[in-house]
């Protein structure tokens, strides 16, 4: 939290981005500085794409995975609850229970869910689709036979996305009644091209507040997970990566014999990599809010974690979740720098003017210089 005091201070005197008094405490500045919603929109699009990819991955198998006529059927739910909830994780509520054993109703819910997730991703009626997205994500956690830790992380992401879109602009913008209920059309993807005459949105208190909640929640997750790993012998001794890299049914005494001469070398590098992961997780609170090259450690570490986690553990959800959460720490200025790089060259001049006229909330000049290189 080192730079929170300056995070959203205006970059120049003409930029009325904030209403924070310089005398306010660091606490108030941290939580209650209004911020532009550029980063929030990017996070929404990335989260929406992740939710869509997750739900689409079940395509063709959705009924067997989630319906009450599937792998874990209605009788199983009743039996498991009757015996005192045998499931390893609590079985919670789900909108899918409403379909009961009707396959048609279940399929309508699945396809309807995909439509809602797509609408949320592109920013249509985000106040409504945001809440529905959370309901959908949580509902598809209901099968205790096949869900895993990564699914729960999506629930957390969906919760904060729903929360922020419910409140963003309600205080700081002069909205029409439909916009208060459905959400601003400025949330839509490419809104600046679709509605070029619309006034730009005022910075939002809700965007900053909820992103701060996300950031601290992510720190709690990573810190707890890192400390928990240290209680596991394989993590302490540095061989945690070795085991999933040697699938039991494919590993034989002969293959181990062949590997033996280079074992010391392999274990040295695997244990080093593993302790770098632990250092990233446990050290996260110390560098997550720092600007400059620490951003490379933050976002780069999450990306390396994604690739490594997928390669070693074959877990498809943790990585993208970590990257999105790591991106939530970027300041508005850093988002602006990222957007500048992503914009097509053809519209560079016009967009540059737009960027220049928007208020800038300062994170660190070092980051900006770094990105522009």
């Amino acid at each position, binding site marked *: 939290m080192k730079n929170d005091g300056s995070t959203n201070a205006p970059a120049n005197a003409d930029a009325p*981005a*904030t*209403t924070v008094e310089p005398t306010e405490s660091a*606490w*108030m500045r941290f*939580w*209650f500085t209004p911020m532009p919603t*550029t980063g929030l929109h990017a996070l929404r699009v990335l989260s929406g794409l992740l939710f869509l990819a997750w739900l689409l*991955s079940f395509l063709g*198998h959705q009924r*067997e*995975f989630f319906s009450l006529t599937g*792998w*874990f059927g209605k009788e*199983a739910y009743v*039996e*498991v609850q009757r*015996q005192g909830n*045998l499931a390893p994780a609590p079985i*919670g509520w789900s909108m899918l229970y409403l379909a009961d054993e009707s396959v048609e109703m279940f399929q309508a819910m699945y396809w309807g869910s995909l439509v809602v997730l797509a609408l949320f991703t592109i920013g249509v009626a985000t106040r409504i689709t945001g809440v529905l997205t959370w309901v959908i994500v949580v509902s598809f*956690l209901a099968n205790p*036979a*096949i869900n*895993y*830790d990564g699914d*729960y992380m999506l629930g957390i992401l969906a919760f904060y996305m729903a929360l922020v879109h419910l409140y963003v602009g309600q*205080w700081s913008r002069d909205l029409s009644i439909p916009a208060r209920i459905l959400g601003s059309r*400025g949330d839509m993807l490419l*809104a600046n091209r679709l509605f*070029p005459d619309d*006034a*730009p*949105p*005022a910075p939002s*208190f809700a965007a900053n*507040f909820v992103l701060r*909640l996300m950031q601290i929640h992510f720190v*709690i*997750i990573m810190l*707890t*997970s890192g400390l*928990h*790993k240290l209680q*596991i012998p394989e993590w302490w001794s540095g061989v*945690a990566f070795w*085991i*999933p890299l040697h699938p*039991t*049914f494919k590993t*034989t*005494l002969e293959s*181990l014999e062949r590997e*033996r001469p280079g*074992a010391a070398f392999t*274990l040295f590098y695997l244990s080093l990599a593993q302790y770098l992961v632990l250092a990233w997780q446990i050290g996260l609170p110390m560098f997550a809010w720092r600007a400059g090259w620490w951003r490379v450690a933050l976002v780069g570490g999450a990306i390396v974690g994604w690739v490594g986690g997928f390669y070693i*553990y*074959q877990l498809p959800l*943790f990585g993208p979740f970590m990257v999105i959460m790591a991106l939530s720490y970027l300041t508005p200025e850093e988002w602006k720098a990222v957007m500048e790089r992503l914009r097509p060259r053809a519209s560079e001049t016009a967009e540059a003017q*737009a960027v220049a006229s928007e*208020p800038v909330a300062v994170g660190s000049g070092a980051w900006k210089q770094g990105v522009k290189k």
Partner: protein
Amino acid sequence: MSAATNPAARPLPQSWRLLGSVLAVGHLALIGLYALAAPSGPWQFNIGSRSGVSMADGPAFARTLSEHVTEPYFLYPLRMTHNYHFSSDRHADFAVYFEVHLTKADGNVVHRKFPDDKANLWVRHRQQLLAQNLVPDQRLPPRGNVRLPAPGKELPKVEIWFRDEPMTLRVKRVDENDDILRSPVVDQPSPWAKALVKSYLRYLCREHNAVKGELIRVSRPTVHPTDLIAPRPAEEFKELRSHFEEYRREE
């Protein structure tokens, strides 16, 4: 995202800021408390003549608040009941896949294997999660005195894993007073695994119009780096086949 200049946000009243502070601290504290309340370990313990390894409970204040307040009234409705002690960090003691044999009314038998090698990565991952839920088994507690049935009643049977040939286990129902239960190590399938097997076979029998189905769990102890230095006996690199109870479709 626009060419015009952003207007300034209206100042937020102090009362809202205080309310927001309380909500933020409360929300995050409850999440932190839930993570703190999780059991940790396993730790070595040595109390008097007893020793071994055991999980340690979280601190009493965190457990009490989590059990009675945080979980039922806040985290459970929000479906945030994860304590961030990820199960994927802890390696399973056994690697598992399973086979299913479905018998149709005409006597034809359909064989399936899960995870299905032909399925895509995401589906295979879910199938693997189902397979992994079939372990571990449950160890029976030591038996006490001989039990007598209530007048006019029979003693309940106990389901155990019974080794009827090398590397093959079958579920067998034995009397409460059977001598086999006095062996030091007697395992039985966990109630959770049994519920899963029954549910899955019910589903497959319905889908394939089969009259009965059998699920065979194939497992092997997970390979460990110590096997590089001092390999375990070759026997431990063989697959153990455990036949769950047959499911018959009722119609």
